[in-house]
């Protein structure tokens, strides 16, 4: 789970768009599904920005996302006036130009682009709009083993990221990095592994490491990161530790 809180003004739109696009891409939504999510969230955020608060005193807007199985869930919360979707006029999709009304298009797009849409309100929590997009490929429930070789440093970290993200995009959630072939790990490399670990946890998954050569293990002990990462002596031991049925 990850979230962002911004003041509900127009400047927030670009940030919200970037945030949710990155989340959708990380989760493995394809290009079209990512665009659909981006547009739905933009319309929802626009509604909050334009209607929730007094324009001179905009309050906050919080966007949260998480992944549960094959459901990509986005929630938008504001503390402004209560929003009742029943009060929004149904969209006019057919009238000729001169008579065409443009109200209700934003809400209509949200319901067409997302697979599930729910509006909740209570006086303490404010408005909560929950939207779900289904992933076409369900997440894998087995361990994806990725061998790394050579140096893991500032130069090679982008390539490592690409490889892991490709696995995530194909559904991997439980990733074991086999570092048996890694001869050198710098702090940049460590940072990259830390980020991958965080991303997998945000998706409800896990990162484990195995095969660390002594000089690589030493980087972890020196920086205290043996406390943070799950490091295993063998691939089999790591596999079992995931605790999965099909590890």
């Amino acid at each position, binding site marked *: 789970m990850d979230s962002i809180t911004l003041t509900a003004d127009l400047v927030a739109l670009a940030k919200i768009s970037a945030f949710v696009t990155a989340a959708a891409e990380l989760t493995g939504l394809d290009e079209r599904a990512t665009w659909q999510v981006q*547009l739905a969230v933009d*319309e929802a955020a*626009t509604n909050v920005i334009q209607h929730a608060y007094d324009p001179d005193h905009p309050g906050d807007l919080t966007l949260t996302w998480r992944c549960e199985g094959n459901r990509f869930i986005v929630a938008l919360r504001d503390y402004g006036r209560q929003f009742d979707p029943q009060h929004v006029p149904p969209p006019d999709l057919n009238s000729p130009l001169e008579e065409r009304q443009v109200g209700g298009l934003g809400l209509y797009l949200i319901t067409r682009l997302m697979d599930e849409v729910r509006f909740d309100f209570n006086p303490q929590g404010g408005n909560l709009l929950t939207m779900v997009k289904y992933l076409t490929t369900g997440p894998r429930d087995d361990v994806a083993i990725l061998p790394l070789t050579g140096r893991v440093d500032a130069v090679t970290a982008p390539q490592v990221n690409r490889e892991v993200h490709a696995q995530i995009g194909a559904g991997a959630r439980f990733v074991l990095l086999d570092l048996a072939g890694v001869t050198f790990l710098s702090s940049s490399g460590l940072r990259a592994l830390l980020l991958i670990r965080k991303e997998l946890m945000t998706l409800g998954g896990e990162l484990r490491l195995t095969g660390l050569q002594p000089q690589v293990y030493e980087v972890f002990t020196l920086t205290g990161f043996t406390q943070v990462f799950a490091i295993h002596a063998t691939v089999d031991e790591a596999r079992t530790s995931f605790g999965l049925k099909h590890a």
Partner: protein
Amino acid sequence: MEIEHRRFNRVDMLVVSGRIDAATSPQLKQRIEALFETGRYRIVFDFAQLAYVSSPGLRVLIEARKKARDWKITDLEGGDIRLANLPPRIKEVFDLTGFTSLFELYSDTVTAVGSF
């Protein structure tokens, strides 16, 4: 969002790139109004580089078209807003909202400009 303007003899062309959303649509509206104010009511939009449009953008376009068509040079000839080079995603938003039937759409700007 960036808007590039090209002036032809009878028609003006606006090349829009980037995003038309709630934040940028006022700027688009202003640009169109600026042309209307100088008596120019025939506009072609080149959307080849348009990455994204949301409902506030659609609202600006439909209101502009209504206003352009209201302006008549003679009883036979009037203003209009015509659209060219819609990328697939933009076309999809138009289809979803029933906007495809509200505009004349062209697959290239030469034909669009020549249609006036």
